[in-house]
């Protein structure tokens, strides 16, 4: 039986359950290649959820399953308790999908592209015109609305690419690597857009292989590699659980750091040394005493915050590849 949702029931359900999307044990194989082995995660309503993984990890395949473009071989993805593979209407009504490629008609104007996608999402007439003007305003492209997309910069195309998925006021916006190939200024502009959308109540799923993007934007993340979700949780929690804390020290004339208790690993980084440890205060105290006793000329000494890079390294055993 088809599940019919209106925005009231949507809000009621999302508030009661607080989980907008539940992805459970998704599997997908292309020929002999297993793209997804076991993808499980959940997305809270109103969150900005990061899906972090290297290229080929299974991010795009997961996104396409969530948006009904392809079917999973196993597992399920439930949007407010409804299986997305069984209710295509609900998926297209509540989800806005921004693919990794710039999927626009380059010969047509930005306005014509928005008309096309707006009508494809079922919006018509004055409502469509109003929404087009709103998203053009939001993306800062009102002035260029009648220009052909092929005359736009990469960043402008990316913004229109996102705008096309916003016309039907989705509750969940899925963005698949939306900043690929653009300059830092345009990337910041897109970040501002995403933050504003998230603050307006739209739940975001943001797929990327850039750790700093996830750290900047997302409040919760899932780390995916080789078709498996390795870990999921709030950013701080993951950093706490899997991130390696460390101390950075930079002194002049020191060619080697002596062995210290509770230091698990030492490595050279830039002009100084990084000492990985679980007991930061003990190691810091020992280091300061050692420096004073040996008259080291200390330029810099600080506690290094755990990074997603170390989380990824800890979970997968490899660095995040491009």
């Amino acid at each position, binding site marked *: 039986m088809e599940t019919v949702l209106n925005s009231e029931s949507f809000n009621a359900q999302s508030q009661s359950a607080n989980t907008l999307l539940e992805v459970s044990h998704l599997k997908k194989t*292309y020929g002999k290649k297993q793209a997804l082995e076991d993808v499980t995660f959940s997305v809270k309503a109103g969150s900005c959820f990061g899906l972090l993984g290297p290229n080929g990890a299974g991010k795009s395949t997961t996104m396409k399953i969530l948006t009904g*473009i392809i079917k999973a071989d196993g597992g399920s993805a439930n949007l407010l308790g409804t299986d997305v593979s069984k209710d295509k209407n609900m998926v297209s009504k509540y989800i806005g999908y921004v693919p990794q490629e710039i999927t626009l008609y380059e010969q047509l104007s930005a306005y014509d592209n928005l008309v*096309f996608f707006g009508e494809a999402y079922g919006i018509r007439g004055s409502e469509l015109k109003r929404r087009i003007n709103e998203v053009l305003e939001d993306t800062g492209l009102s002035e260029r609305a009648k220009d052909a997309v092929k005359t736009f910069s990469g960043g402008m195309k990316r913004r229109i690419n996102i705008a096309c998925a916003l016309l039907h006021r989705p509750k969940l916006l899925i963005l698949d690597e939306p900043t690929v190939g653009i300059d830092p200024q345009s990337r910041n502009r897109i970040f501002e857009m995403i933050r504003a959308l998230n603050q307006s109540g739209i739940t975001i799923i943001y797929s990327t292989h850039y750790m700093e993007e996830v750290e900047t934007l997302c409040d919760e993340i899932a780390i995916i590699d080789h078709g498996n979700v390795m870990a999921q949780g709030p950013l701080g929690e993951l950093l706490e659980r899997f991130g390696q804390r460390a101390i950075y020290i930079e002194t002049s004339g020191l060619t080697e750091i002596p062995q210290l208790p509770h230091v698990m690993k030492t490595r050279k980084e830039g002009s100084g040394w990084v000492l990985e440890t679980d007991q930061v205060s003990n190691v810091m105290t020992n280091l300061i005493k050692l420096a004073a006793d040996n008259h080291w000329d200390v330029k810099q000494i600080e506690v290094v915050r755990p990074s997603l890079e170390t989380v990824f390294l800890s979970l997968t055993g490899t660095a995040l590849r491009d």
Partner: protein
Amino acid sequence: MKSIIVKELKLILKEKRSYFFLLIMPLLMIVMFGSVFGNTDDSTVDIHVIDQDHSLASKAFLSQMGHIKGINLEKTASKNTKDEIDKIKKGQLSSVIVINKGFQKALKEGKQADLKLYQDPSSASSVAPVKAVLKNIANGYREQKLSQTLAAKGISKEDISKTLAQPIVIKDVNTTATGINYISQIVPGMTVMFVFYIMISMAKRFFDEKKSGLLARVQSTTVKPYQYLIGMWLPFVIIVFAQCVLLFAFGHWVYNLNLGDLAALGLIIICISICSSGLGLALSLIVSSENMAMVISQIIALGGAMVGGLWMPSYLMPSFVQTIGQFTPQFWAQKSLQDVIARGAHIGNVIDGLAILTAFGIVGLIVAMICFPRFLRSAAN
């Protein structure tokens, strides 16, 4: 679906290559062939003559030839027969008639008058009308001689004319519409040939949608697969219809092409549009690459044009080619169009052609519907 149709029409009209294949090329071909063959009805046969007799009889003979419609007598300046024969050998002349000295004398004496026709064996087709003219005039002289001989024997004029009357009379009866000329072969022929080039444009559009990821993205919207398919197909039906209308209008206004029953012509054009775009749709979804679609489109367009009687009337081709031609949509399109344009046919007379063209289109649509899910999957992955 409306949004897809509008978007697609805008994209097609912005694609410059479409104009080249769909309009410029057929127009160029029509103009080119029209210029070469369009005035064949008014063509005249040039006959080169050397009169060595310079008698009243030779002048009367030449005058008689000169009065025949379509004959242009050119008396050569040279009196030297050898020079003219050399010209024939060099390919500068196809034939020359020489009236020898003694032509009048021989006629008066009732002997055979000597007249020579020098000809280039490789130009048999252009010499044939000259031969026919000479034979015709020679027959006239023979009848005149017979008449004089019979009159000399006291036979009345009435009996003479009865005796010499031709046993078989051939009367020209025009059974078709007026204004038939080579243009009535070329305009529909070129139109039908280039209509099938729409298949290239269609394949390009589908592969563009697939490669760019647009088709995958559209699948995440409320657009249903059948809406997408029909939305992509209908603009090409409209484009082909417009293409045919423009080409026939050009033929009508520039070459005075008779269009016949406009309702019948319009219906044929609709069926041709359904047929070519339906086959284009099937081809776009069957093939694995745009290049393959281009090659197959050329084979269908050119092969069909050749055996379907678009370049020359079917009856001029070997019988096995005629038989093969009947399995092509081009044959039925051309036949139906010429029936209306040249033979004054109406809708009722071209029902078979309309049905066959529509059937081709429907088969194309069915094949496209069967292949579309596979195409969608390949676009999504």
